[in-house]
């Protein structure tokens, strides 16, 4: 008999506005922001899913969804164009009773209960669309099953100072969670939630319905659903993840994650052929390096024309770095142009931005500790006029 049934359905929260990325997300949703030369942020969770044998994914969008929708398309680049399952873009929609935007992370899943029910899954994996990491969700699912858990939350060990910026899971020695604290002033442990959850679907389904009925709820997983499950005596476990993981919700962290691609020791090894990160391909020829180019410790992507100096930078597809231009410690996004003699230091230059002749963006901070480095941003499509100086930490739209 034909059946739609899937053991595990992934729900990817991609609706965040990403206000802390400023002009980089003025026209695209955060998961659609360019990363690492030829990727978008969402390529990481999507590739993780398919590499973990999860082939049914709902992508919950609401903020600036067009580019993200177009990018995902039929899911073919991630091998997600399936007869049964595949990738589904799920914006909020009109319903007979009442219609609403996604009010919170839990509400976004609540509004798609029918979608999930269609596949009668035992488990639902909830993911964020703004993290850079490689993770085998099937290992986490095995852990979830072996513990007989109702909910498993992936956690990563952070420093005690950082802990107060995260949701912290306080656990017993067996890994079961007895307390959840959202951004605690005095953290009791350093198990930070990665925003990755596996739920038994029937349990979650009930809690989502209860949560929706509660007028005081924020309809948020961290603030409402997880605490309610703890209070309800449900079995919650923390699943410790030891690999590379980065929330790229800020300019600085997005810049750092790009720099981590260059550093062999960062743990973010995207060359690993057994865990490929897939992306929609731009059909560009190989990059061309001219007679005046000088490139060291950098990544350069297809379709580029390079005739300038590049140090410690990630150069995305179709970028032009012209003769006499200097790019150091920066991330240049697809299609941007750095013209003759222009200089770019410690910056993110958005898609299609143009740095005209002799302009200077940011400043070198080679002796500044990395925590104190300040990143200058040129927004997508922005033009820095000939000879202009863009001061350090400025944002050009």
């Amino acid at each position, binding site marked *: 008999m034909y059946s739609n049934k899937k053991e595990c359905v992934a729900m990817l929260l991609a609706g965040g506005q990403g206000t802390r990325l400023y002009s980089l997300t003025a026209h695209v949703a955060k998961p659609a922001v360019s990363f690492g030369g030829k990727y978008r942020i969402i390529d990481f969770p999507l590739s993780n899913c398919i590499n973990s044998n999860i082939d049914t994914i709902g992508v919950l969008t609401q903020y600036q969804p067009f580019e993200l929708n177009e990018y995902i398309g039929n899911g*073919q680049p991630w091998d997600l164009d399936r007869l049964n399952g595949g990738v589904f873009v799920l914006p909020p929609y009109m319903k007979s009773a009442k219609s609403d935007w996604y009010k919170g992370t839990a509400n976004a899943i609540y509004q798609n209960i029918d979608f999930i029910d269609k596949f009668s899954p035992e488990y639902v994996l909830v993911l964020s669309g703004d993290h850079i990491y490689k993770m085998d969700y099937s290992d986490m699912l095995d852990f979830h099953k072996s513990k007989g858990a109702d909910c498993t939350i992936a956690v990563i060990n952070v420093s005690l100072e950082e802990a107060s910026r995260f949701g912290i899971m306080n656990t017993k020695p067996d890994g079961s969670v007895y307390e959840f604290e959202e951004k605690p002033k005095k953290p009791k442990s350093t198990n930070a939630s990665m925003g990755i959850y596996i739920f038994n679907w029937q349990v979650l389904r009930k809690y989502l319905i209860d949560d929706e009925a509660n007028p005081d709820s924020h309809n948020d997983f961290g603030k409402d659903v997880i605490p309610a499950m703890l209070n309800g005596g449900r079995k919650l476990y923390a699943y410790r993840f030891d690999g590379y993981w980065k929330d790229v919700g800020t300019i600085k962290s997005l810049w750092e994650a790009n720099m981590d691609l260059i550093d062999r020791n960062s743990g973010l090894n995207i060359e690993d052929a057994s865990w490929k990160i897939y992306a929609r391909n731009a059909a560009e*020829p190989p990059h061309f390096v001219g*007679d005046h180019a000088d490139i060291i410790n*950098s990544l350069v992507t297809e379709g580029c024309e390079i005739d300038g100096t590049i140090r410690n930078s990630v150069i995305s597809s179709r970028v032009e770095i012209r003769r006499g231009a200097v790019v150091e410690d920066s991330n240049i996004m697809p299609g941007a142009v750095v013209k003759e003699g222009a200089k770019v230091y410690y910056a993110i230059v958005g898609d299609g931005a143009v740095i005209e002749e002799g302009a200077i963006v940011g400043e070198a901070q080679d002796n500044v500790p990395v925590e104190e480095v300040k990143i200058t941003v040129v927004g997508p499509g922005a033009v820095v006029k000939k000879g202009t100086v863009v001061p350090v930490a400025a944002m050009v739209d």
Partner: protein
Amino acid sequence: MNNEMMSIIFASDNETKLNELTIHRTTASLPFCGRYRFIDFTLSNLVNSNITTIGIVTRNNYSSLMDHIRMGRDWDLNRKNSGIAVFPPYASNTSRTMFKGKIEALYGILDYIEKATEDYVVLTNSNIATNLDFEDVYKKHIAAGADITMLTYSSHSTSSRRVLVDTDKSGKVVGTRITSTLSEDIAEVGLNIYLLKKDLLISLITDSYERGYTDFEKHIIQQNVAKLGIYAYHVDGYAAIIDDVKSYYTESMRILDTDIRNDLFYRCGKIFTKVKDSVPTKYGAGASVRNSLIADGCEINGRVENSILFRGVVVEEGAYISNSIVMENGRIMKYSELRYTITDKDVTVTEDKTISGSENYPVVIVKNKTV
């Protein structure tokens, strides 16, 4: 004018002269320009011109071609209607022997051609690098009232077989010469790409086959110059026929010229190829690269000048590559030097080796070899 045209691609032509480079593959699947196979140019030109019914006639060693094309998805050719059909060598329904030339090959697939709904056929070899708009060819064909349009470019004859074309002022072909004599004189040279009405093709092929003719250029084009309206369509941008190691090397190096490269990759549309999900290329502390074309997935820690690196090439520290072509997954180890060398896929050059050819006679290292 959607879907007025279909196409037949001949995947094998003149292979013998490409020697080591076509031991394991057809000309169509010969790697070119860092990340492409020859057939990518033809397939992309067809798709960009809305031609989506495409038959590929193979002759031998076609498994690498099948592996490259798969279902045609990378060219948007995995269609419900139309799409790619690959004909293996023994498709001929009348004889069980290998076909001898294009006429016999086409005769063997007349059923396929007849069944297609399109009225016009583009015949093309697959050892051609150019960026074409077949819709423009079609418009000119109709405007001239041509029976056959043959595509030509300005070049000179070589020691490989070339068709030299004489036209009158209107572009009508008044004579052709088939030659294998090297000459420096610039002439209009046939690209081995033809457009004609399907019905005409079927009658020409049937008639020629029944008469025992085998040579398309001689028996169908040359013999019919006076009888049919054969017109030349001059390809104005970059175009090249690759049929020996010398032309392969020379045309590869010409692509380092930015104007020529832009012409080949962007003139009428983009060139698509099989997607391999390689990572961006990593330049290490010892990298020094000049005037070179570098595909994704490379790791460069040595010197590279006037060269082409395909996907996944590793250049270790102290290695020096100049005027060379290193195909996919090549590994040039520490302190080795390559000059005027073509290394095929998966070649490893171990430490401290020097391999040196000359501009006229580049050295070819065959696939999978360790030096």
